[in-house]
């Protein structure tokens, strides 16, 4: 090597070398850093943790599987195997010979098979050549034909040979098998025994993450793409796309990446497991599970029991979905692969990190736990130790447009697809929530497009005749604070609210001023209302008896829709306290609370109202109970006794002139100059000023949204539109100074506002004025949404609906209840809900609010669950239009009111019942005509079963049948002669067989109990017929069976046959004439869209005996 030449350098080369070395090393380090940074992702921890849990469980199960019994059997089999091989060794020569023979034949077979196949291939080719040569008229056509036939014959030969060789080979095989069979049997048996352990150990290897295990190696950085064990799981949903500002982007749900077990049963929480196992057990006991699934269900219950007994509870995110039968599960209606997760829950679909996924805390506590983190990483990323403490590194992500619904608001997600439905199947929470929204009439002030009802009436009463009804003094006090008059009223409090007078948030001086202004506004509103009121003169009631009146009110059914008390006993403390709406069923809040009604109004008004509510205003929701004049007088007398004198004693401050002036002027100067406004005001009298201010105040508070008020017709609702409120960005909600703050509501509950939309809405509903706290605002700019005094539960429900109203759209075909069939049913459901049928009846399994006011359950109005299957459609139609056409249960005090349905409405309801009761089609069985023999047998059975003990069988006037004369209310039963007009032919026998299954707790005794083992019906007569007591019946019956005793006995043990006979008898004694409801007597036409059945004439005219049952009409959409 040459000596080096010295050269000048700017920097010391050796120092540069050192820097080079150091920086290269640093480069290696940061390259490693990049790899590590990319490799370590939060979701991996969740998967590793789940694999650990799986390992634990598999090991446990393996221990169970390796039971002693199995070990013993295995040992025996090993012994057997050893013997077998010894045996084989002894006959080794024979076995070897057989094997050799087989090997040779196998070779032959292979050759023969190949020859055959090749020949066939040649033949196919030849066939083509032949055909071609014929078609193309080639010269060698005949030659080719001959060749083809030659090959064909050859192939046939080869086939014969192949068959022969195959036969020989099979025989040789059988020869060997006799030697191997025993060994193979033993092996099979062993496999069977170890099957479960083998399977488990195979499963174990799939979740094994031990160092240098296959999984571990495949999970190392840079190798993790080969066959990843830990990987992102996703569901791509092209048709449930995300609307990204007018672009449809496929939804890619990756939730399963962390929520590993969401679709795998067996990882439920303990509480869920308890609930599920109980549910399943009940179903099992009630024979609601098909025979072939029973074993499976039992196994599942056992699994759930094991979960409950396990030492550790499974925590989120590893839990199974609690409603697998409804969501996520592959057999459910919302399977994971079709629906994913974020369609319902919302959240960021593609996210793989906790915060970015859009998880929303439900409470401040949850929020704090989620957000807590080790100071070690300065909050850059959460560590496994954070995860282990369930600190997920949460940070509010302002960039997520669809944050998840927090717990307690889950069912808000249903609205997206089920918005048109009245009741969401198994969505009890959302069903109740939407009802609550309707109860409070949120829709009146807040426009909600596409709400399920488009024709909701204004929730408040018409105020056009307020002067006929009450006095200004009462009205003033009422508007001031409706809850002072009735604690359960739905009329909200507009005045003297938190942002006006609460000393904790309003300075004292402003407070005094506010009170003056509020007083003035109320006076003004009252003045306006009474100024514009009509003054019709109502007829005065006759002398009434308050005692009788009370009895009527309590018995005819008023209590289905009305409450008559303000005091309830608190369930927890046992103390008497003021009632809340929530203390009563929703249905009983339909009408107003009757307390104090005497203080509020006068006798003439009450009298006319109860007699005919529609006379006061046409839209009045109250139906007519057909009270006679005397009854109405009695009721009036009673209602007048309901006084609340204390209410009228509160002082009324006269309106402050200056306040009225200031307020009125405030409105006037919007359009007039200050001078003009002053002069205009001077030109008005005090009263005129008040009326002017009243008009403006009604406009300000939007009273007209809920009440009909003269001069405000056709105005737009006052509140914010809620159609897509749930999609509104969080930053558009004005939290004022209440973000992440606690506050105390008037009911003493401390609430906490957290920075989420549901929390904002909830708190707004709890007290609409809190976001004004500590803000400086002009009087008219202060929040004015009234206070409904909602309980936490009510507020939560309404908030759930509000956050569920989003702009997210799903394709039409994914919307629930949009097909013609469902729409028909929904239409009926709407009517049921609108007319509050559930106040008295059970419909869709819910309702009968009146039950709490009727002591004896035997006097309750009927359960309509099976009504569709039960009632003949023409009857139902007539009855709905005019309930007086038939009195089925004359002993009932409760009256079916007259709703004045028009034909369309009645038709809708009939359709609904027919469909909802699974009675499928409109009934057409009225013409059934039983044979006399059947009737006779039926009569005997009827007697034997002592049906007549309760049921009358003598014809009666359907409009006024006598009340059964019995002291025992449990034996009250309808007169059976009415059955033929009312009940469906095929339903009668079904009902007799299983009354308790149709209406649990019915008075009708179960005569044909089910056999626990088979689930079939048993007949009590099977044995009884042979007893001496029944000898007489037996002798009567025998001739009817042509003396065939065997046949008789068989029939007596056949519940289905017996009930059919009973039905025939009942049918035969039925009367066939009934008054038709409407003069035109239109029976319901089929409301199904594709079919138009000619309307049946009045039932009476139609009941000709020679007509057989017309088969049910099928078809129609959705069937």
């Amino acid at each position, binding site marked *: 090597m040459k000596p*080096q*030449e*010295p*050269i*000048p*350098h*700017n*920097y*010391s*080369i*050796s120092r540069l*070398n*050192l820097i*080079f*070395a150091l920086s*290269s*090393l640093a*480069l*290696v380090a940061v*390259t*490693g850093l*990049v*790899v590590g940074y990319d490799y370590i992702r939060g979701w991996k921890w969740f998967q590793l943790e789940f694999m650990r849990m799986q390992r634990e469980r598999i090991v446990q199960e393996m221990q169970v599987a390796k039971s002693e019994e199995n070990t013993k059997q295995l040992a025996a089999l090993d012994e057997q195997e050893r013997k077998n091989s010894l045996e084989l060794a002894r006959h080794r020569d024979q076995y070897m010979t057989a094997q050799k023979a087989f090997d040779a034949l196998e070779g032959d077979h292979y050759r023969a098979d190949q020859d055959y*196949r090749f020949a066939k*291939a040649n033949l196919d080719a030849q066939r083509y050549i032949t055909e071609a040569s014929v078609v193309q008229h080639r010269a060698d056509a005949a030659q080719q034909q001959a060749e083809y036939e030659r090959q064909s014959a050859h192939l046939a030969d080869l086939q014969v040979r192949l068959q022969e060789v195959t036969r020989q080979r099979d025989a040789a095989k059988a020869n060997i098998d006799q030697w191997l069979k025993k060994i193979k049997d033993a092996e099979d048996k062993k496999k069977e025994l170890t099957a479960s352990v083998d399977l488990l150990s195979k499963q174990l290897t799939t979740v094994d993450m031990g160092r240098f295990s296959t999984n571990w190696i495949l999970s190392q950085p*840079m190798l993790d*793409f080969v066959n*990843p064990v830990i*990987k*992102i799981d*996703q569901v*791509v949903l092209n048709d449930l796309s995300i609307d990204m500002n007018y672009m449809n982007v496929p939804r*890619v749900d*990756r939730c399963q990446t962390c929520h590993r077990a969401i679709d795998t049963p067996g990882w439920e929480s303990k509480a869920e497991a308890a609930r599920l196992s109980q549910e399943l057990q009940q179903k099992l006991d009630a024979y609601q599970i098909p025979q072939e699934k029973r074993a*499976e269900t039992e196994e599942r219950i056992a699994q759930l029991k094991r979960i409950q007994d396990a030492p550790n509870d499974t925590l989120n995110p590893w839990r199974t979905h609690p409603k697998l039968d409804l969501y996520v*599960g*592959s*057999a459910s209606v919302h399977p994971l*692969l079709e629906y994913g997760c974020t369609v319902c829950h919302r959240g960021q679909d593609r996210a793989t990190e906790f915060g970015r996924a859009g998880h929303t805390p439900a409470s401040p506590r949850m929020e704090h736990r989620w957000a807590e983190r080790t100071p070690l990483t300065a909050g850059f990323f959460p560590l496994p130790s954070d995860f282990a403490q369930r600190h997920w590194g949460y940070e509010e992500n302002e960039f997520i447009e669809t944050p998840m619904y927090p717990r307690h608001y889950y069912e808000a997600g249903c609205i997206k697809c089920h918005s048109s439905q009245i009741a969401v199947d198994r969505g009890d929470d959302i069903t109740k929530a939407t009802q609550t929204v309707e109860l409070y009439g949120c829709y009146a002030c807040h426009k909600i497009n596409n709400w399920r009802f488009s024709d909701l009436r204004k929730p408040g009463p018409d105020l056009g005749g307020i002067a006929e009804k009450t006095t200004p003094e009462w009205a003033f006090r009422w508007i001031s604070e409706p809850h002072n008059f009735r604690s359960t009223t739905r009329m909200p409090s507009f005045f003297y609210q938190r942002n006006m007078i609460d000393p904790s948030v309003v300075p004292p001086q402003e407070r005094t001023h506010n009170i003056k202004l509020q007083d003035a506004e109320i006076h003004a509103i009252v003045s306006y209302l009474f100024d514009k009121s009509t003054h019709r003169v109502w007829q005065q009631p006759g002398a009434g008896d308050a005692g009788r009146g009370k009895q009527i009110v309590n018995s005819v059914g008023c209590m289905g829709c009305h409450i008559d008390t303000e005091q309830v006993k608190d369930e927890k403390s046992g103390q008497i306290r003021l009632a809340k709406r929530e203390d009563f069923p929703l249905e009983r809040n339909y009408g107003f609370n009757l307390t104090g009604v005497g203080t509020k109004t006068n006798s003439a008004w009450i009298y006319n109202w109860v007699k005919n509510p529609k006379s006061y205003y046409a839209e009045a929701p109250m139906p007519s109970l057909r009270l006679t004049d005397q009854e109405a007088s009695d009721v009036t007398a009673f209602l007048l006794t309901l006084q609340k004198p204390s209410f009228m004693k509160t002082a009324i401050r006269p309106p402050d002139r200056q306040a009225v002036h200031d307020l009125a002027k405030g409105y006037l100067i919007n359009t007039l100059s200050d001078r003009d406004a002053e002069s205009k005001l001077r030109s008005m009298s005090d009263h005129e000023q008040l009326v002017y201010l009243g008009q403006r105040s009604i406009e300000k508070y939007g009273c007209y949204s809920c009440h009909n008020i003269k001069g405000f017709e056709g105005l737009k609702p006052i509140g914010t539109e809620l159609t897509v409120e749930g999609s509104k960005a969080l930053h558009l909600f004005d939290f004022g100074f209440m973000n992440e703050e606690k506050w105390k509501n008037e009911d003493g509950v401390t609430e906490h506002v957290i920075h989420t939309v549901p929390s904002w809405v909830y708190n707004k509903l709890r007290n609409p004025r809190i976001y004004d706290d500590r803000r400086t605002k002009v009087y008219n700019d202060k929040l004015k949404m009234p206070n409904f005094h909602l309980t936490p539960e009510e507020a939560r429900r309404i908030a759930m609906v509000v956050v569920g109203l989003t702009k997210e759209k799903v394709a039409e075909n994914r919307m629930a209840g949009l097909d013609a069939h469902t729409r028909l049913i929904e239409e009926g459901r709407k009517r049921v809900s609108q007319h509050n049928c559930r106040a008295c009846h059970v419909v869709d399994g819910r309702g009968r609010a009146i039950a709490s006011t009727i002591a004896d359950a035997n006097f309750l109005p009927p359960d309509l669950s099976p009504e569709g299957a039960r009632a003949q459609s023409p009857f139902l139609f007539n009855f709905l239009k005019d309930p007086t056409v038939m009195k089925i249960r004359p002993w009932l005090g409760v009256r079916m009111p007259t709703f004045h349905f028009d034909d369309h409405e009645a038709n809708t309801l009939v359709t609904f019942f027919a469909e909802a009761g699974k009675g499928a089609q409109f009934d057409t069985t009225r013409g059934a005509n039983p044979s006399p023999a059947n009737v006779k047998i039926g009569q005997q059975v009827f007697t034997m079963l002592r049906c007549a003990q309760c049921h009358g069988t003598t014809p009666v006037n359907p409009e006024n049948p006598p009340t059964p004369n019995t002291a025992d209310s449990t034996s009250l039963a309808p007169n059976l002669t009415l059955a033929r007009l009312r009940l469906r032919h095929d339903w009668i026998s079904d009902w007799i067989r299983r009354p308790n299954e149709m209406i649990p707790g019915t008075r009708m005794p179960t005569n044909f109990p089910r056999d626990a083992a088979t689930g079939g019906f048993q007949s009590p007569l099977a044995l009884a017929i042979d007893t001496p007591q029944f000898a007489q019946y037996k002798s009567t019956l025998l001739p009817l069976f042509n003396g065939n005793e065997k046949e008789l006995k068989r029939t007596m043990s056949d519940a289905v046959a017996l009930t059919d006979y009973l039905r025939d008898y009942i049918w035969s004694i039925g009367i066939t004439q009934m008054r038709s409801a409407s003069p035109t007597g239109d029976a319901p036409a089929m409301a199904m869209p594709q079919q138009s059945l000619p309307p049946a004439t009045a039932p009476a005219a139609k009941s000709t005996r020679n007509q057989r049952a017309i088969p049910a009409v099928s078809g129609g959409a959705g069937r």
Partner: protein
Amino acid sequence: MSDEITPYQMVPKTPLAGSAAADIREQGEITRRSFPVVLTAAWVALAAALGGMSAVLLRFLFPNVLFEPVQKFKAGLPSDYSVGEVDERWKDKYGIWIVRTEEVVYALITVCTHLGCTPNWLPTQNKFKCPCHGSGYYKSGINFEGPTPRPLERAKIFIDIADGQIVVDKSKQFHQERGEWTDPEAFIKL
């Protein structure tokens, strides 16, 4: 450029430039004698870093998630398939033939094992025939003619306990030549 080198002379003309003189101490004769440990380490480290980055680039080419058609799908109930027929209803969507025989149901992947074309099912000749190079397969998927070296592959198939439907999972494949067709997941026993 000439390769004549003027030997470096630092003439500090000003005190300012003098500070530069301190930087130029190196005359090039110090380190070259022995093995340059530092330099070698530096180069090795640089090579390692570049190697690492190349690996990163390579890994970058393999996404962690695929947006291909789903590998696993539900194929209805076994009774939806008639015995002895090759069912082509999933061919276009998922690339699967479902074959039901007297005893079993199995799923064949519609990829020719020769060069990846899609064969056609010819019911009249009772065979799969690949249009590209003429490979032929029996209904069982066994090859019998043409250039293909091995039978068609079968996909994992099983019954979902929850609803009794057939589930086909294409991500797991079974090769006959490896004796995998006897695997219980390669067919459903009826």
